[in-house]
């Protein structure tokens, strides 16, 4: 502290002049150089310093009765937690690594993980992971019943998605915006074609109709822009123009879906495991954010009808449990449809999950919108921005930054909720793992533990990854108006 003051002092010009004369006349001794730097006390640096500061400082105060009690309490709980962690972690490591059975070279299946009592070779009382079981079931846990010859399609989809996502996330790479747009537009279409095989029976009439509709809407938009549409219809014409482009885009997507790429069609019933979990979670995450933002804006809108509709939507979806939604979609929906018409089960679950999480997302975003100062809205109005401009440029960037933890919370919740689709007969990661547990060819006392351990680790990796990335985003977008 003292050195800082000395350094800072010369800035004040009045003092600078006053000091030398004082030194000359009055002081007996003046230190002109800095005192030699002593090594920091051992309680401040190094391992001891760290240990002292972080662990022992809180339990070495015996100054008074209450402080002594506190110290003893802290020491005792530290020891307890340490003991707990060591036993648990060593137990886990022992279960998963040291005592585990790693290979089954003779193809004994369950016998490889049996103790002597059960008719195997392992010592009695052995209790650890049976990895050959996971090795045998890995394909099912990761891909479900997806045909083995076509697994390259899934892997290619993963690789493409991972590559593009990494590109967007690494800040030094060029064209990140373009890759991002491709990731959100072209990639889903490509993934759909790769995974399902494409070549859907979409009539050229549908595609043609959509194209013509789109062109018509664009023409209306052009006319509106050129001023041929008068009055209140002018705005409508502009909206029609925008919709026209969307319809054209939709027609293009349909056209791509109709192309036969000579890939074998693979029913979504054959999908399973991690593939389903990722498809459901990613679709839900990507679709629910924009939908949620629209709903949040709608709920705060000054247009009564839009506000009402959005409120009803949000409250409805928040009011029903996801299990109910999935059951409705899988059990009730088929009864409402004419016999023989069915609607892909996975698509039903996807729509259900997306709408459900959109409602939650809407409330998270609304929280962010409410945190924005009124002055920001007024400022945006004052510089003459339209509603959408002010939202896009001023309000949403701030609001969304505020609620990143909430948004990621919803994402992570959604990722874990995908496990619920297994109750409607879709084999997600958990469902697939559970169904492998039923295989009597592998049934051992540790079969269930091994399977659940793998599922837990996979879920943790994804959720923890999302969590870390969100913290990175928070730091990056921090405009430092908070500490």
């Amino acid at each position: 502290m003292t050195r800082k003051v000395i350094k800072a002092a010369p800035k004040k010009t009045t003092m600078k002049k006053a000091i030398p004369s004082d030194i000359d006349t009055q002081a007996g001794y003046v230190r002109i150089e800095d005192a030699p730097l002593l090594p920091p006390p051992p309680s401040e640096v190094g391992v001891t310093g760290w240990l002292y500061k972080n662990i022992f400082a809180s339990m070495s105060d015996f100054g008074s009765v209450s402080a002594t009690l506190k110290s003893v309490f802290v020491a005792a709980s530290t020891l307890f937690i340490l003991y707990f962690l060591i036993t648990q972690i060593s137990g886990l490591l022992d279960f998963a690594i040291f005592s585990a059975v790693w290979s089954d070279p003779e193809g004994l299946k369950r016998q490889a993980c049996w103790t002597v009592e059960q008719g195997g070779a392992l010592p009695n009382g052995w209790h650890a992971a049976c990895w050959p079981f996971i090795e045998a079931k890995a394909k099912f846990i990761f891909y479900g019943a997806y045909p083995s010859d076509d697994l390259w399609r899934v892997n290619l989809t993963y690789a493409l998605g991972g590559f593009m996502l990494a590109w967007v996330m690494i800040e030094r790479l060029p064209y990140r915006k373009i890759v991002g747009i491709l990731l959100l537009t072209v990639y889903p279409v490509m993934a759909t074609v790769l995974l399902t095989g494409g070549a859907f029976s979409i009539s050229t009439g549908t595609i043609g109709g959509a194209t013509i509709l789109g062109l018509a809407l664009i023409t209306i938009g052009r006319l509106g822009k050129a001023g041929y549409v008068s009055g209140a219809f002018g705005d409508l014409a502009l909206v029609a123009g925008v919709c026209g482009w969307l319809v054209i885009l939709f027609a293009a997507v349909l056209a791509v879906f109709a192309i036969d790429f000579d890939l074998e069609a693979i029913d979504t019933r054959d999908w399973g495991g991690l593939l389903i979990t990722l498809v459901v979670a990613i679709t839900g995450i990507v679709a629910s954010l924009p939908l949620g933002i629209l709903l949040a804006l709608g709920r705060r809108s000054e247009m009564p009808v839009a506000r009402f509709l959005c409120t009803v939507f949000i409250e409805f979806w928040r009011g029903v449990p996801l299990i109910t939604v999935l059951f409705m979609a899988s059990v009730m929906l088929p009864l409402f449809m004419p016999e023989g018409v069915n609607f892909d089960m996975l698509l039903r679950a996807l729509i259900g999950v997306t709408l459900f999480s959109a409602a939650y997302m809407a409330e998270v975003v609304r929280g962010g919108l409410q945190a924005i100062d009124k002055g920001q809205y007024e400022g945006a109005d004052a510089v003459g921005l339209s509603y959408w401009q002010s939202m896009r440029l001023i309000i949403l960037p701030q609001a969304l930054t505020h609620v990143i933890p909430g948004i990621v919370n919803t994402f992570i919740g959604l990722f874990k909720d995908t496990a619920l689709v297994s109750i409607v007969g879709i084999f997600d990661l958990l469902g697939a793992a559970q169904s492998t547990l039923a295989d009597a060819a592998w049934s051992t006392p540790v079969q269930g533990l091994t399977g659940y351990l793998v599922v837990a680790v996979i879920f943790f990796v994804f959720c923890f990854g999302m969590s870390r990335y969100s913290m990175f985003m928070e730091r990056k977008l921090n405009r430092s108006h908070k500490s």
Partner: protein
Amino acid sequence: MKKLSFLSALCGAAMGFGAVASANAATTLEAVKAKGFVQCGVSQGLPGFSNADDSGKWTGLDVDLCRAVAAAVFGDAEKVKYSPLSAKQRFTALSSGEIDILSRNTTWTMTRDTQLGLNFAGVNYYDGQGMMVPIALGVKSATELDGANICTNTGTTTELNITDYFRTNGMSFNLVAFEKADEVVAAYDAGRCDVYTTDRSGLAAQRGKLTQPDSHVVLPEIISKEPLGPVVRQGDDQWFNIVRWSLNAMINAEELGISSSNVNMKKFQSKLAPSVARLIGKEGKFGEELGLSNDWAYNIIMQVGNYAESYEKHVGLNTPLKLARGVNSLWSNGGILYAAPIR
């Protein structure tokens, strides 16, 4: 508002896109032929009956029935697609037309047969609730179990059956019920109860999860009837007949000694017992009566095998389930499998 209507249009389009074009066929057979495969409802994993193997391919006794129907209809047992269904979903999936056959270890009961608009086309496995006890308990019969602690699943008929049984025999018992099969086994293995009760096929499947599988024994008493069989929609007798006779063909083949290994030889034999000739389509037009080709049963036996082959492959003594034929033997071997003759 334009935007809203556009959104709804999009939704509509998406729904149309998701819908498989309805063939609008009058009969299930026509619809199945039009789409080119049999859609079969199976369990979410029940060893021996319907279970995905290591590569994700469905196998099991129930699965074989669907393959038999596909072999009869298309001459190709592989033309089946499977819908894994939960217990709650299964009947809706069938009545809504999402699947063509429900072959999912479903117990044939009067309520199900009469109130759901469904028909049971036969029985492919006679199961029954059994009890497992540790050998150390020294119990030889269920009647000695007075005052026992019994582990079972909650909310299933097994719970009701065991209560009925003990009441009938005037014995007291203490029920320890769990939600999941795994928990029941773990509790039984840990010695929390003296008896573990569920369907006998289930007892066999869960045995491997015990720390000492060989020190437990299944008691001889069977305390409930669980005839498991394929289910079809009511009101389409032709399809009902196809499923029923596909099963009957497998059982008859066993009775007549025809299996996948000798059916080809029989086909080229000039002198055949008339019953065999009728079965493999060398005599009569039994297939045509069903709306199929006359070699329908030949295809079943060739590609799926007879009942005994299917049984031994999936649940028999050489499988992890190690279920003896028992009551599922042919009537001529002391069991109750008795298929109507093909003539």
